[in-house]
């Protein structure tokens, strides 16, 4: 009883914080089901009208697929590239790999815009991909590097000792051993790229990603279709993160047994 009394303020505080974080999302999701032209109260009752409209919007669906392609493919490559044996990298190199985390996406986006312009790569989905590699690399590196402990290093050494080449070690051994962290970084970069707006906005022209489409939709006026698109972005992000969490915990607990 006494614990209950003591815990009540804490519980209330937790609820307030959770409400603060999730209320906007809840409102967004709710009004994507609005039966009416405007995503503002009062709520006129549930309707899938705006989802219907969204899926009928070819540009939007194309951009959605673009986003998935960019993020999955590059998320995987960024993670896989960093899974390589990096233990003897000096702290300086580690620092420079992590440093982009502290730079604003706006600055990275503008920098890339100028650089790609000089190099002669025009604004395109490919350019967005490069931008997303830049922002996701530090995170993938951090996740995978943290998993690459002494044990993994010994496994790597053991494979080489038994005659495996660099490529064989990577393919037959390390890629398997590192599966949980590879998957985690893949999901994380996929989610981050999926939601990313600034770089995608600055570096794309015709084949844009979903957040850019949503921005354009917003400029032409507020409709529940924006909510529907937003809900879709949110749902996919959450699903990816949950899938990652479940898989990683299953894989790591399986390892302990």
């Amino acid at each position, binding site marked *: 009883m006494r614990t209950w009394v003591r815990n009540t303020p804490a519980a209330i505080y937790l609820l307030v914080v959770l409400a603060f974080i999730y209320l906007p999302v809840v409102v967004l999701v709710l009004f994507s089901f609005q039966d009416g032209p405007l995503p503002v109260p009062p709520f006129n009752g549930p309707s899938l009208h705006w989802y219907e409209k969204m899926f009928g919007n070819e540009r939007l669906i194309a951009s959605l697929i673009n986003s998935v392609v960019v993020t999955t493919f590059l998320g995987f490559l960024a993670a896989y590239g960093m899974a390589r044996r990096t233990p003897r990298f000096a702290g300086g190199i580690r620092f420079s790999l992590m440093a982009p985390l502290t730079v604003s996406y706006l600055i990275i986006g503008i920098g890339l815009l100028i650089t790609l312009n000089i190099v002669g790569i025009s604004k395109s989905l490919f350019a967005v991909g490069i931008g997303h590699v830049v922002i996701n690399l530090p995170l993938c590196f951090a996740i995978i590097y943290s998993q690459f402990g002494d044990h993994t290093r010994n496994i790597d050494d053991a494979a080489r*000792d038994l005659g495996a080449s660099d490529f064989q070690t990577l393919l037959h051994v390390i890629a398997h*051993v590192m599966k949980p962290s590879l998957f985690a970084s893949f999901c994380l970069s996929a989610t981050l790229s999926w939601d990313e707006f600034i770089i995608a906005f600055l570096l794309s022209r015709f084949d844009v990603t979903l957040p850019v489409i949503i921005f354009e939709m917003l400029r032409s006026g507020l409709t529940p279709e924006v909510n529907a698109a937003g809900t879709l972005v949110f749902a996919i992000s959450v699903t990816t993160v949950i899938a990652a969490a479940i898989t990683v915990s299953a894989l790591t607990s399986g390892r302990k047994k």
Partner: protein
Amino acid sequence: MKNDILVSLKGVTKKYGNVTAADNVNLTISRGEFLVLLGPSGSGKTTILSMMGGFTVPTSGQIIIDGEDVTETPPALRPTVTVFQDYALFPHMSVLENVSFGLAMQKVPKAARYKRAEECIDTVGLTGYGDRGIHQLSGGQRQRVALARAIAVEPAVLLLDEPLGALDLKIRRQMQAELVHLQKSLGATFVHVTHDQEEAMSIADNIALINNGKVEDYGPPDRIYLRPATLFAANFMGDSNLIEGTVLNNDNNQVEVDTSFGKLTISGEAKQGSNIHILLRPEQIRIGVASNKKGVSLGEAKVREVVFQGTHKLCHAYSGKQFKSKIMFRVSPDHSVVAGDILSLHALEPDAVLLRD
């Protein structure tokens, strides 16, 4: 058969910045020998093993295996295989796949490599475990898989980096015996790293005692235990009584030493006036008054504590002038000695080892 030298380390030194992990190490290992690199943690024994295995390149010096200079040869290209302390098994593969991995890398056809792997699995006593996953095995079983994986490629030298460190005592003792058995039956050369001096003594043909990156003492276990070359070796290899003293006289390979037990005369060489230690193992100290001229009298001792250890009782006592020097000795387990007893002690002169500081 003359000693056939398989591995030799010549002046091998490894420096990490200002730290010298291995300092001018010279070692030779004969074919078929079981060598143990013994030393406290941080002594550099693992670094030496890692240089033999090719994972660490020496700062200077030469490593020759089977007549070939392999100082800078990568691990895959030398006739060594390392068994790691954490076994480093491939967790996503079955026991059979683990054991046949080395052969697969040598492009041995599947049927032949599985056959060979099965043989190795039998050799380490895991018959029928080929299909198991690594996660389903106990520590001792994983250890066996690691051994099987290593012997499958028939290395000239098997390097073992504290392979028994993670096992509990009973399995450890059992694995020690099995390691020796395996090594003798394969006729292979093993180099084994450990910090456990009992383990070293029970498995080694020769022990290289490593301290501060140097070979402190080298030889068969009984010699190192009974007649250690240095004070460190005496201390590291089991319980010891180290009696400090100053050399009074040095005459015809006999020295007279002034100690807290009075003047003791033992054989050995030391400069007059120098400080030395006399080593006597607890089991070398006997109860009673020295009877003949080979006896070294240690006077009377007051027993402080008696610890029953099954095969014997270990007595901690105060001895020497005013009972101020500590001494340890063993008595038979049925001896009636209790704390507070006063006993006369002596040792036999040939047992005493003179150690220069």
